[in-house]
């Protein structure tokens, strides 16, 4: 899942981007509403963190530019309940007022994304593998499996769309941020690593329809 953070203050922006990446999300950060509007034209984000106080306007004004599936967390100015209510009424999934722990932002973002893509609020079960998309953990028979952040991101996207075939272009777009080297294709190696890690439990199949499909084994 790929998320855009729009935040005025460079130190806060760095912190938010860092913590969201630590939760296995692909994250881009921009500082102005204009820059955000530009990237939103090109990238189909799954979520966004919009700050209401930007140098060139209100982050809430970017909401209509996001796709209907994107989960939005709005960061309001200090201690303003009215702004929080406004954000929710405008269609944001969640509203936060500083000060808050960076982890809280990440947890709320993950939860909002999961609410947008899953009908059930509990973890996804695929055979013996349980993927807790909101808490960002993967367990096999109750034992935690440690993966890299990129692997988690790729598996999360495949699992989120487990009922359909997911094209490789879509995976590259949703699981890598703007730092990706456009002259290389990092996807096959990540798929292979996932296949090796879950060799006994999951099958990540390349279908003749031109995309990947994840299925439980056995």
């Amino acid at each position: 899942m790929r998320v855009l953070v729009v935040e005025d203050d460079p130190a806060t922006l760095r912190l938010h981007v860092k913590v969201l990446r630590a939760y296995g999300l692909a994250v881009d950060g921009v500082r102005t509403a204009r820059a955000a509007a530009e990237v939103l034209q090109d990238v189909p984000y799954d979520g966004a963190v919009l700050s209401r106080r930007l140098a060139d306007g209100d982050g809430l004004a970017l909401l209509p530019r996001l796709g209907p599936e994107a989960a939005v967390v709005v960061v309001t100015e200090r201690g303003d309940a009215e702004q929080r209510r406004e954000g929710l009424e405008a269609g944001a999934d969640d509203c936060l007022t500083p000060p808050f722990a960076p982890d809280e932002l990440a947890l709320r973002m993950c939860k909002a994304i999961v609410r947008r893509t899953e009908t059930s609020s509990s973890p996804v079960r695929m055979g013996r593998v349980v993927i807790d998309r909101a808490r960002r953990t993967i367990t096999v028979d109750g034992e935690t499996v440690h993966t890299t952040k990129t692997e988690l991101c790729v598996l999360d996207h495949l699992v989120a769309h487990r009922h359909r075939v997911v094209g490789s272009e879509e995976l590259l777009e949703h699981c890598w941020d703007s730092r990706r080297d456009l002259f290389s294709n990092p996807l096959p190696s990540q798929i292979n690593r996932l296949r090796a890690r879950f060799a006994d439990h999951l099958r990540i199949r390349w279908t003749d329809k031109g995309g990947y499909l994840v299925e439980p084994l056995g």
Partner: protein
Amino acid sequence: MATLVAPPPSRIDVRIVVSGPIGSWPIGPQADGFPAAPAHPVHPSLPRLLVVEPDADLRAAYASALAADGHDVHAVATVAAARAARPATFDCVVLDRVGGGDDLVLVDEIYRTGGRTRVVVVSGQASDADRVEGLTRGADDYLAQPVGLPELVARVRRLTRCRVTSSAPPIRLGRVVIDQDRRVAHLDGGEVDLTPTQYELLVTLAREPGCIVHSRLLLERGWHDHRDLDSAVLRPHVARLRKALRGSIEVRCVRGVGYVLEVVGATVAAGRARVADEVGRMELRTPARAKTA
């Protein structure tokens, strides 16, 4: 991807429900001495809400505000009473955490049952650590007491009205139906044998039937590395696509621009008008080419 359209009816049988004042049960059968849990909502289309709040005044305030916003509210005072009411059968649970450390167990229980119940925790203890713990254990929202009623109502509404929308709808074009989730096209009910490239071309054209799609866009969708490709590459693929669709859909070439998809026998009038308009504009922009064509 699974879509959730409406909450599934838990009981099919019809019975008369006597709806009391806010916070009371509809009258129903008693089981195991527990107060009867409502077998189905008072009004089937309203989201069902369980409010767990020990303070009587607050409970009444929450319940009336949430009911006024169009929720079917059931309010209880204790976690034990909430448990008896089977919290996992509700759409959303608002839990005031005053009883101490133990009440987050209710959140764990709801999370484990695997339903689609959302949980909002309201708490006097809302340090950063408390919030992170509450959210990690499965709460969808964690609010610090005192919480303004308009905000609480807005947050609950956000959770109960948000529905999953991740599945792409099938595209219907006369005899052809394109299942975007499975990346297949059906003609008269039978699957059409398409290569991934042909499918991409079809779906790109079909998303806007009657509109000219530029060759550049088709190359971008069908061939990921398209920079060096000439639009002539498209021709054999479009030809094979036409053949596979056996005349049910016409893929017309607009010279110098791209392709346009038209449903044979049932072209949308608006689509045609748009094509005419587009072609007109193209000719205006490139008169020389239009003349030679």
